[in-house]
């Protein structure tokens, strides 16, 4: 039985009039006057774009489906249609079961009302019955860890308490279909991790989950299946690994060389200047991953038809959970100010790599005096396990992100009292 079936859904937005987001009577009158002369569409003004084009998708009950794709591909629009916030322009969607989403955290909280009052109000907004809220009330309060502040107006809460309470209510909704848009998930990393943890609980409980994320590592670990959205269309569908591979530029991924023109992870407004990323070791050999304690060189080829004066390149390293942990930035780490034109190659060597083994992602940002030129997100980057400390032992996973240089000294018969 399909929990979600999407049949030929398209969504059209009007752009070009974004600055006057809402209409005025004067505008409507002018539009109506123009409408007498031209076609209706022209009278409405602005240019139309299709945020989604003919999307068809079936998700079976209990499936956990990842949705990946570059910014502006229509991922959020799709979730908005599924959660009935906005209507499709064409096509239809059939949903079986209650829909909830973790992007609604804190919606409808009123600062003047107490925690207790807000739990009931927010629960009702999310579609819970009063009896259901009453049954789960204690659990929610426990989960939120707000205890004796339950009868205090939430405007006096710390932001941490506020978010915890909001999340606690959303987390106890127990929808049959859960929609998660990670980009919209607020809060710090530990909170986002809590969201993801809750999501995998839900997924294991036989519910249907749709997960939108830029974070390939979490999509890969949570979703067996994924679809790739590009330009409002589904361009790939299938096993998550393969879809992600396709998204990140396919053929080159994992081989130490990426064709950046094929990657779908380019931010909107980027010029396609950066063309190729290569990882090399200290001897100049192309390697698929970095080794802790050794040098790693990022070699980036690009080509720009225009002169880019004051060019700077940033290589940002993010954890699998999307937290930025390091940045290599030529503006601050190099004394040269460069102007680039035509073909160029930039080399950045990170000496003595102090990253713990594990999966990371890279973000490349090329800027010039005039602003952002090219930006590519979510390139895979792996630091491989190795015997870093020369002890003959591998580090277990999840020791953090930073690889400290340490020495230990144990002495017998000293210390104590």
């Amino acid at each position, binding site marked *: 039985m399909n929990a979600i079936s999407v049949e030929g859904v398209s969504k059209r937005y009007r752009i070009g009039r974004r600055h006057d987001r809402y209409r005025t009577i004067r505008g409507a009158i002018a539009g109506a006057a123009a409408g007498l002369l031209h076609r209706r569409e022209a009278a409405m003004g602005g240019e139309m774009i299709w945020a989604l084009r003919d999307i068809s998708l079936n998700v079976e009950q209990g499936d956990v489906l990842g949705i990946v794709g570059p910014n502006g591909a229509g991922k959020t629009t799709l979730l908005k249609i599924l959660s009935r916030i906005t209507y499709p322009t064409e096509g239809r969607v*059939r949903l079986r079961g209650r829909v909830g989403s973790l992007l609604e955290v804190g919606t409808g909280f009123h600062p003047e009302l107490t925690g207790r009052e807000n739990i009931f109000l927010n629960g009702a907004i999310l579609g819970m*019955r009063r009896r259901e809220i009453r049954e789960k009330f204690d659990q929610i309060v426990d989960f939120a860890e707000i205890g004796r502040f339950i009868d205090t107006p939430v405007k006096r809460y710390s932001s941490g308490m506020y978010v915890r309470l909001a999340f606690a209510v959303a987390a106890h909704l127990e929808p049959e279909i859960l929609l998660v848009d990670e980009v919209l998930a607020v809060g710090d990393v530990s909170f986002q991790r809590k969201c993801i943890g809750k999501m995998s609980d839900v997924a294991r409980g036989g519910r249907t989950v749709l997960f939108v994320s830029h974070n390939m590592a979490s999509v890969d670990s949570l979703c067996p299946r994924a679809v790739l959205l590009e330009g409002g269309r589904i361009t790939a569908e299938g096993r998550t690994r393969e879809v992600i591979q396709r998204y990140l530029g396919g053929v080159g991924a994992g081989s130490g060389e990426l064709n950046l023109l094929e990657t779908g992870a380019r931010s909107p407004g980027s010029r396609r200047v950066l063309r190729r990323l290569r990882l090399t070791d200290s001897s100049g050999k192309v390697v698929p991953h970095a080794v802790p304690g050794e040098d790693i060189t990022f070699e980036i080829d690009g080509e720009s038809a225009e002169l880019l004066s004051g060019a700077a390149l940033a290589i940002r390293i993010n954890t699998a959970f999307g937290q930025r942990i390091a940045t290599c930035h030529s503006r601050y780490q190099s004394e040269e100010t460069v102007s680039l034109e035509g073909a160029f190659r930039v080399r950045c060597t990170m000496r003595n790599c102090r990253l713990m083994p594990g999966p990371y992602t890279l973000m490349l940002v090329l800027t010039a005096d005039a602003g952002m030129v090219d930006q590519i997100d979510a390139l895979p980057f792996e630091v491989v396990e190795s015997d870093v400390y020369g002890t003959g032992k591998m580090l277990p996973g999840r020791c953090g992100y930073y690889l400290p240089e340490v020495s230990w000294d144990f002495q017998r018969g000293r210390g104590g009292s």
Partner: protein
Amino acid sequence: MNGEKKDRSSGDVSVQIIEPPRGWLGVNWREIWHYRELLYFLTWRDVKVRYKQTFLGILWAFLQPFIRLVVFSMIFGRLARMDSEGFPYPVFLYAGLLPWQFFSDALGRSSQSVVGSANLIKKVYFPRLIIPLASVGASLVDFAVAFAILVGLMLYYGIVPGAGILMVLPLVLLTVLTAVGTGTLLSALNAAYRDFRFVVPFMIQIWMYISPVVYSVRKLPEPWKSLLVLNPMTGIIDGYRSAILGTPPAWGRLGVALLLAVMIYLVGTHYFRRVEAALADIV
């Protein structure tokens, strides 16, 4: 047993079809019924938040109409000496002021309600009509409080209600219908055209002068007497008065008011539903 019941209640919306809206858009009252608890909570929130942190609290719902009663009685009763069909002016006035207050308050609140709930609308689905409905509901609570003053006035002036007082209940329903129709229309217009933020207060003020709040429609000279019937509040206010003061009801005026109220309701909700489809994209 409990579980079974729960399943059946959620079964109503267990399969949802999402399609582009088209054709005549009526109100899906079944869905509104399903979301009745949300309506209750939003109404309750409106009432609660309105009087929270005020020193006098809910007493304001009592004081406001009372002060208005005193001031209006002075101006229109003592100074202008309005014809009050032979009844003490304060009772005559209040029988009209009571429904008018409710109506204008409901209009004022609901016209702002949708724009004011933008963050809800952009993040979670529920029938949007609940928002202006909750505003009308909150005004109804104030109305109930203000009703106590009427009881006091009738006791004070020794007016014994006749069987006609039973008409008050259907009249309240008729006022709610008119308020819901007008309120939803204005809330949608305000979302689509922000100009209405300035239009509504004016409109309410002018509407009061063309409604027989401080004067009697029965004592008006002819062209006006018939013209004013086109305002649904004329029949409604006159109806309240005859129910409370025990004068014979003007069925014709009431009939026209009912017809107008139904028309406004149909137009208002249809327009609301049309704007609703695009609401998340425009608020």
